[in-house]
């Protein structure tokens, strides 16, 4: 067994006992199926009489649909039927992507297929149902649409101008949502500041590019009035509610099955018009219907993210103490706010999180979110973090340079001290159990800044621009009901676990948390086996099936370990308690003298015990042998939710060193370091892999990824050859280390770890690039930082 790498939470029991699995980097034995080709992804499923669909999608960003003629398409080989909005709307009710707790949001009704007007390139307009996807695509070519192209509102920066194209005339203008945060008096504080620095940064749109595209199989069973949906989503119970609500079904008779999911990153937690159409089609034709998005559909219809322009201002005194910070953020979200989480949350998190690690007594933040004729934008991994962290950390570096202070020192003197929690973000959001000071110290220790600075200077003499950066950040994880539920969304913030001892002695565990590759199943098994005192291999796990798991929220916002894991811990402890009570009755001894080790109930003071199998056999097959009145339940369930605060925050510190080729503008990441404090690590290897994968995704946004649009709103690079995702060759190895501050909100003490990498990497890359460019008085302010932007900054082109 691997060595325990981290200091374990004392609430979890001693380290040297048998079956102590929490804190160990155990391999994910359950995931070996993927190496044998045995995963069960949605597209792997074939049902009898299943049909396939292909969508006719708007080729224009903004156009009127004057008429649609589907007659020829209906006669095409293999075609079952062709539907437009009229037919789908008979079965599926429209939705509105607004929530009630964040002030006024304005977004119109949205239907699965566009009616009269299409508002982004890729919006579904008609759907062909056929025996094969290829035949459905053949028939698409036979649908005749009389389009009247309209002027598109593409640029978010002109969306509120008086001459802008108003995308939803009934709203009067293109404003979706706006929010202002005002703490203290920034104007007064800036006047007192010895140095005031400003920056305006922009962040391109990018998207999730999950390797497995979105997919759904809907199977309406008329005989049972039951809808079964096989879906590669992240929140099965949320989908169950939404499909029941909009198709007018009995919610209890909607079953969502999410088996293996080929990556999600927030892309697969939203309600998509084409997927709703598929469920409606199955209801209408009474056959199983499959839809697997192709890559073009993924690029133009999966939610996009970022698309922000943010201006910031920071005032410090001569000692480097921050007096005030002000930000103004603009974001464009496409023509609709996504359902049911809305497209306001990214901007909201920018406002919440900017300046979060630091004591900033005066803080003002304005966020404005507008409509535009592009693919809808919504929450994606590290929602809002890259923008909040980049603007904060860019301003802090600028302030440090201005008052000639080391970049690590200015951060240290402004951190909320590790011993000063509970505390609050500058925006007022509560914080607890964080460690910016210790994490930065650890980062500086593993980075060796002196050596890095010496290398930067040496490279400069050789004509190479090398620079480095460090950043600190807060990471939103483990949301409470104050995130979505309070606003009226039926998204559970509570999660459940159910655990049972079976007649064979096997342990079965089910959880409402889902698996998309993070290792959910593995950590749940580790927690259950650890807390119960059984071998890992005796636990099997069921996830992702609303008919078979407890009710709950699913996996998003890094909530699996902290919320779902706590539910498993509590359920396992309950079951253990039950088992020991039964064993005490069977063994005629005091329960406190007993424990469970390696699937046996043992006597702590020695003497003969009883195997869990024998105990279970007694309970199930010979219950009459138990003393009368024994509570013989070998099934325990528990739930957990975060109460009293909006989120359990995690914190992280990152550093990197980059070199810039002055001839080509190409940036090479020499080294990257990350220190994460996510509290208890149930499986440190899996935590590290969350950090690494997240950092690379963040580097993608910082250097490569961009949904490129022309000025008519056509996406120019909707293929995997043209949209540049990070590939292996350009990516660095990442050194990961930890500080451990357990969350006081739970016994398990775990916080989330999935967002930090993606949230922090863009900031630290940009700071390092600008540190390198500073040597020649140049600067970049726009992501992705392409070679062309570098060469422009250097005055070469």
């Amino acid at each position: 067994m691997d060595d325990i790498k981290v200091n374990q939470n004392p609430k979890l029991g001693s380290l040297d006992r048998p079956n102590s699995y929490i804190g160990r980097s155990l391999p994910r034995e359950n995931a070996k199926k993927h190496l044998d080709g045995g995963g069960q992804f949605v597209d792997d499923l074939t049902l009898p009489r299943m049909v396939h669909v292909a969508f006719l999608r708007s080729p224009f960003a903004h156009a009127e649909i004057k008429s649609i003629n589907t007659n020829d398409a209906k006669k095409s080989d293999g075609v079952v039927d062709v539907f437009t909005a009229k037919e789908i709307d008979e079965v599926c009710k429209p939705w509105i992507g607004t929530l009630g707790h964040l002030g006024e949001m304005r977004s119109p009704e949205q239907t699965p297929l566009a009616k009269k007007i299409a508002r982004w390139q890729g919006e579904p307009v008609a759907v062909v149902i056929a025996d094969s996807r290829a035949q459905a695509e053949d028939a698409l070519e036979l649908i005749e649409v009389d389009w009247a192209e309209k002027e598109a509102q593409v640029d978010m920066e002109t969306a509120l101008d008086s001459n802008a194209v108003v995308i939803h005339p009934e709203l009067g203008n293109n404003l979706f949502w706006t929010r202002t945060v005002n703490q203290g008096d920034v104007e007064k504080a800036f006047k007192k500041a010895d140095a005031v620095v400003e920056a305006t940064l922009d962040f391109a749109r990018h998207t999730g590019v999950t390797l497995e595209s979105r997919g759904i199989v809907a199977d309406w069973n008329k005989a049972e009035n039951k809808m079964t949906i096989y879906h590669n989503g992240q929140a099965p119970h949320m989908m169950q509610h939404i499909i029941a609500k909009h198709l007018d079904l009995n919610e209890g008779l909607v079953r969502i099955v999410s088996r293996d999911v080929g990556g999600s990153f927030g892309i697969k937690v939203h309600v998509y018009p084409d997927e709703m159409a598929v469920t409606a089609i199955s209801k209408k034709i009474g056959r199983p219907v499959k839809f697997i998005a192709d890559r073009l559909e993924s690029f133009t219809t999966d939610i996009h993210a970022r698309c922000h322009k943010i201006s910031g201002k920071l005032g410090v005194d001569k000692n480097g103490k921050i007096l005030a910070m002000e930000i103004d953020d603009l974001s464009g979200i496409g023509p609709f706010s996504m359902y049911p989480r809305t497209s306001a949350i990214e901007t909201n998190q920018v406002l919440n999180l900017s300046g979060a690690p630091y004591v900033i007594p005066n803080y003002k933040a304005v966020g404005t979110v507008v409509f535009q004729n592009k693919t809808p934008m919504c929450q994606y991994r590290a929602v809002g973090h890259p923008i909040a962290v980049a603007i904060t950390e860019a301003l802090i570096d600028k302030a440090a340079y201005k008052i000639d202070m080391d970049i690590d020192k200015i951060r240290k003197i402004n951190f909320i001290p590790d011993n000063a929690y509970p505390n609050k973000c500058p925006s007022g959001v509560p914080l607890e159990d964080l460690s910016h000071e210790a994490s930065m110290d650890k980062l500086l220790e593993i980075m060796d800044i002196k050596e890095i600075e010496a290398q930067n200077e040496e490279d400069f003499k050789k004509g190479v621009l090398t620079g480095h950066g460090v950043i600190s950040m807060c990471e939103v994880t483990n949301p409470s009901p104050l995130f979505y539920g309070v606003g009226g969304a039926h998204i559970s913030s509570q999660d459940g676990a159910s655990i049972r001892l079976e007649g064979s002695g096997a342990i079965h565990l089910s959880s409402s948390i889902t698996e998309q590759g993070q290792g959910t199943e593995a950590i749940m098994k580790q927690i259950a086996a650890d807390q119960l005192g059984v071998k890992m291999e005796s636990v099997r796990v069921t996830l992702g099936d609303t008919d078979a798991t407890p009710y709950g929220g699913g996996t998003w916002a890094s909530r699996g370990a902290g919320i779902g894991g706590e539910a498993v811990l509590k359920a396992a402890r309950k079951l253990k308690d039950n088992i020991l009570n039964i064993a005490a009755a069977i063994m005629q001894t005091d329960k406190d003298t007993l424990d469970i080790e390696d699937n046996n109930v043992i006597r702590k003071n020695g003497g003969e015990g009883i195997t869990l199998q024998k105990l279970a056999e007694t309970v199930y097959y010979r219950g009459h042998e138990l003393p009368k009145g024994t509570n013989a339940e070998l099934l325990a369930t528990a739930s957990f939710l975060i109460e009293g605060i909006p989120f359990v925050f995690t914190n992280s510190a990152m550093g990197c060193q980059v070199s810039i080729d002055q001839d080509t503008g190409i940036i090479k990441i020499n080294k990257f370091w990350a220190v994460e404090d996510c509290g208890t690590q149930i499986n440190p290897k899996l935590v590290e892999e969350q950090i690494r994968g997240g950092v690379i995704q963040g580097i993608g946004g910082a250097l490569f990824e961009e949904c490129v649009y022309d000025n008519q709103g056509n996406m120019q690079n909707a293929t995997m050859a043209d949209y540049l995702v990070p590939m292996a060759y350009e990516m660095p190895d990442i050194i990961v280390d930890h500080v451990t501050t357990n969350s006081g909100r739970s016994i398990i003490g775990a916080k989330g770890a999935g967002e930090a990498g993606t949230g922090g990497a863009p900031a630290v890359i940009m700071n390092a690039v600008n540190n390198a460019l500073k040597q020649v008085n140049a600067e970049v302010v726009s992501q992705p930082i392409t070679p062309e932007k570098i060469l422009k900054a250097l005055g070469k082109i």
Partner: protein
Amino acid sequence: MAGNNSVNISFTVNGENFNNVNVPSRQHLADYLRSQGFTGTHLGCEQGACGACTIEMDGKAVRSCLVLASQANGANLKTVEGFDDEMMEKVKQNFLKHNAFQCGFCSPGMLMTTKEILLNKKKLTRDEIRSEISGNYCRCTGYQSIVDAIEECINEIN
């Protein structure tokens, strides 16, 4: 116009004979294999850019989305379901040990690319490994763990 909309061909998959089967002319090999239950071969882009569908065709790694099923006449194909020799079992153990996959969608293609690296029997640096796998997209891991696993495989073999 010559030829037909379907073609009658014979080939093997993981040693199993497929004799005189009709395949649609326009179907690519990945779709054909998946239709026959070899669902370990995954489709990520259908243009050769992501590497998820990489399989072995007559001893060489190919993108099965960029080969027509009809072109497989006479070929010996191997998919992830057939990676069961001693070397590949060792590779899988190393992938498991290093957590060189998360969601598993890239794994079949990544394993095939690894297989070809190992069959070339060259001692590669980490940068060279990164170069060899640079046609296989993985969104989850950030690649380091995959490089770790392949590096260990190379060390064991050389």
